């Protein structure tokens, strides 16, 4: 039986967690919610760091908790990796000993991966002889991730691993996370409250609100809805699957084909024919009823309005269908009235910028 199946009920300090779901047994699942929504509580219950009074947890067929039978496997007997918000490296051990801490305690037949490979993936081979106090924030987090991976986990849990880092440090870690996503053969649960971050590494999205699971689904599907809390986020926007058709070296552009037409982006160093997911922020899409005339905007696609939602404060979210691909546009209430936008209206969507997704 594949998947992560859980049901937790826990009351603590006036906060109530009541979460029940079955999550995919492979790929990266993001747990998204505002701070205080219970994302971390849920993750700690899954790790066994906190014990839900009423709980049940099965990870890819292995039962870790079943309070109806009085079963609770303590964290040290669960094959998991946990990356904390602050790296929580052992200050008295060098990087190598930190990395090997879980590895040494894993029975030989259960061991997966090896130190050299992990050091290569995470770029920490040079740091082995250092103490944690001699590392930068980004390096610490990479070592913490390596330590968790060398524990040969069957489930990797990451609790906002980048929250304590500044923007350049985040940018430094991101490629490693993307690589991890490509290489990992275990399910990864990733807690975050940053939509940008999860758009780059998650396959599946779980929305958490007030200790409950509001909704879950494949990332693209969730990002294309306009009635979920994420649609109110500044960074809301749809994900579109494309394929690289050609590179234009003269203008330093790459042509991407999707079901609703073609999109040009700054040159991407990837082979033609490769699939590529892109994300178009709702704030970067403007709408017109006529084909726009001369403009600096390269990308204009034809679409039909499929849904309109008033988000308050004069802001309107419009969901479009561009030849089968979803597109979100955030416009003002005034623009909506002026254009007379309704469900079924045909529009030209001008796309100001494109972000890469996974």
């Amino acid at each position, binding site marked *: 039986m594949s998947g992560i199946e859980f049901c937790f009920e826990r009351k603590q300090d006036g906060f109530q967690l009541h979460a029940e779901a079955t999550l995919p047994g492979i790929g990266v699942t993001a747990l998204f919610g505002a701070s205080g929504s219970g994302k971390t509580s849920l993750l700690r219950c899954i790790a066994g760091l906190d014990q839900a009074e009423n709980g049940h947890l099965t990870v890819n067929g292995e039962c870790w908790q079943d309070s109806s039978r009085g079963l609770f496997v303590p964290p*040290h007997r669960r094959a998991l990796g946990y990356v904390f918000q602050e790296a*929580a490296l052992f*200050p008295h051990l060098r990087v190598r000993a930190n990395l090997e*801490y879980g590895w040494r305690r894993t029975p030989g037949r259960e061991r997966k991966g090896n130190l050299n490979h992990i050091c290569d993936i995470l770029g920490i081979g040079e740091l082995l002889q250092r103490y944690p106090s001699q590392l930068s924030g980004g390096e610490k987090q990479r070592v913490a991730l390596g330590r968790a991976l060398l524990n040969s986990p069957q489930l990797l849990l990451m609790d906002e691993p980048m929250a304590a880092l500044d923007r350049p440090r985040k940018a430094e870690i991101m490629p490693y996370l993307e690589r991890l996503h490509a290489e990992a053969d275990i399910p990864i649960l990733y807690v975050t409250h940053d939509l940008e971050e999860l758009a780059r590494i998650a396959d599946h999205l779980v929305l958490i609100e007030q200790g409950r699971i509001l909704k879950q689904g494949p990332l693209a599907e969730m990002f294309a809805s306009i009635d979920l809390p994420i649609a109110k986020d500044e960074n809301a926007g749809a994900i579109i699957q494309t394929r690289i058709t050609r590179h234009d070296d003269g203008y330093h552009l790459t042509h991407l084909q999707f079901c609703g037409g073609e999109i040009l982006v700054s040159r991407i160093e990837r082979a033609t024919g490769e699939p590529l997911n892109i994300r178009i922020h709702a704030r970067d899409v403007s709408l017109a009823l006529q084909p726009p005339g001369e403009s600096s905007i390269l990308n204009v696609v034809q679409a039909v309005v499929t849904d309109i939602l008033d988000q308050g404060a004069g802001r309107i979210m419009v969901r479009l269908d561009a030849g089968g691909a979803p597109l979100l546009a955030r416009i003002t209430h005034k623009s909506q009235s002026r254009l007379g936008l309704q469900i079924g209206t045909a529009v030209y969507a001008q796309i100001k910028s494109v972000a890469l997704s996974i």
Partner: protein
Amino acid sequence: MESADISALWVTLRLAFITTLILLLLGTPLAWWLSQTQSRFKTVVETVVALPLVLPPTVLGFYLLIALAPGGIIGGMTTHGLAFSFTGLVIGSALYSLPFVVQPLQNAFRSINPLNLQAASTLRASPLDRFFSIVVPLSRPGFITAATLGFAHTVGEFGVVLMIGGNIPGETQVLSIAIYDHVEALEYTQAHWLSGGLLLFSFIILFLVYRQNSRWPH
């Protein structure tokens, strides 16, 4: 030095060494429990542990004398009681020096980031494994302070020993009592030698502890 003084020195060192060893063995789990528990008995236990800091040693000595006597709570378990014996002295010293060992350990344990222990638990370390692989090395300065203070305080003990020791040369006569005897007998030269020696010893021990702790990076 007279042979009586040498045997007093030997009894003192033996007493301090054994007491420190026992205190580290018993004090470590006690300090760990105190640093982690949310039990309502915690405050009571902490108070009891701290009592020797404020009680006149004669009070502790008096109750110990009664407890160690042939019919007492502790002495009753033996044939002749434990008062005026080396074993009795060890029990008395252990109680008397308890806070000097438990408090530094408790402080050291309390300052360990619980995240480190949680991280270790997600890395397959059992509670006992976590204690020895994380808590003990991170508490090294605490252990050094506890051991040294426990040892030095036992060496400097007077009142309790006076009450329950009986001043038997080679068995229960310790340095501090020997000094007292010399002064009583107006043997100031011997008193000077022993007092000066203890003064120097105490200074060096404390100096080493403070130096060690200021060097420790964490």
